[in-house]
């Protein structure tokens, strides 16, 4: 049996297959990301009993309900605080926060910023679909300037978050961005990040044909995928300007930061406990 066949067979054990087909719309990219994540977990040979998937609220928040490992569907925006708590109580677990852009950067924006600053040992998989999909397509913190949504019918005046640049500026040791078109690169990136320590951020640009695409001349799932295919370029040393996502513009993807050896918060905290015990 080849490796790919084996991965596909074991993937069914990591999914709660009785809940499938899932709630996501036809052509939604979250399924592709979940598929890549599960394959990366199996390739890393991580024990399913040592893996925790934490997610917030939203379309991507439903991912925690489909994985057959310990998972946590938390309150809106609080995926990272719950994950930090899990990591503190059980430092031996691999904690993954699997959530969407609205949950991680709007409602939970402050948690993201401060957890990244302290370098907690978490893997953040941020699925960015440019909008609030579940509530009907309102504009969110990652909607590109000029995009049409239900709450910005004449074009969005806001500037979107530049997520890789935000994470790099806060000192995250691993920062990457891919689109759902790059299935293999995405899987390898998650595989690499699972073997590292520290606050690792992977942003995945995903398609939302149902509420974002239909208002921005990409009505079908395939036309959104075609947009990613034609407009994404791989550039690992991209500058701030290049990392910005412009409406219908280029999407720069790649691995923007990959450094090792930065002590995590958990390590520094253990160090403090040891020092305090020696003094007393």
């Amino acid at each position, binding site marked *: 049996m080849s490796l790919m066949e084996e991965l596909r067979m074991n993937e069914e054990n990591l999914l709660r297959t009785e809940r499938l087909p899932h709630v996501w719309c036809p052509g939604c990219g979250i399924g592709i990301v979940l*598929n890549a994540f599960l394959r990366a977990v199996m390739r890393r040979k991580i024990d399913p009993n040592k893996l925790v998937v934490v997610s917030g609220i939203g379309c991507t928040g439903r991912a925690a309900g489909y994985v057959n490992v310990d998972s946590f569907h938390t309150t809106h925006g609080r995926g990272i605080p719950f994950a930090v708590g899990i990591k503190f109580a059980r430092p031996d677990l691999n904690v993954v926060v699997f959530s969407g852009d609205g949950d991680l950067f709007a409602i939970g924006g402050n948690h993201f910023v401060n957890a990244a600053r302290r370098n907690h040992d978490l893997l953040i998989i941020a699925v960015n679909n440019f909008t609030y999909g579940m509530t009907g397509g309102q504009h969110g913190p990652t909607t590109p300037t000029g995009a049409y949504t239900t709450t910005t019918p004449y074009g969005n005046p806001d500037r979107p978050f530049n997520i890789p640049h935000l994470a790099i500026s806060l000192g995250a040791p691993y920062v990457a961005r891919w689109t759902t078109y790059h299935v293999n690169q995405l899987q390898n990136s998650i595989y690499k990040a699972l073997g590292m320590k520290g606050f690792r951020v992977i942003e995945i640009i995903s398609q939302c044909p149902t509420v974002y695409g239909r208002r921005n001349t990409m009505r079908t799932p395939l036309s959104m995928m075609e947009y990613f295919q034609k407009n994404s370029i791989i550039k690992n040393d991209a500058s701030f300007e290049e990392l910005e996502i412009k409406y219908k513009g280029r999407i720069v993807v790649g691995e923007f930061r990959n450094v090792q050896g930065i002590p995590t918060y958990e390590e520094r905290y253990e160090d403090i406990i040891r020092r305090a015990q020696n003094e007393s």
Partner: protein
Amino acid sequence: MTENKNFKRKATVKILEDRCKGCWYCVNYCPTKVLVVSEKLNAKGYHPPEFREDEEHVCIACHLCELYCPDFAIVVEELK
């Protein structure tokens, strides 16, 4: 059409039709176009893809349809 005379038949693609939602990424991104949109409907009312090989279109077991499927509905079974 791609010239596939050098390729040998390497796998069959099994479709779990009840999970399919008809996004047709698999049909579009199959490099040798062995998947086509079928006429039949599944329980949810979508047209699932159908595995159809002929002389020009042969499955090369690249597993790309599996990776692109957002609904976990494709299993590629390699032939021994």
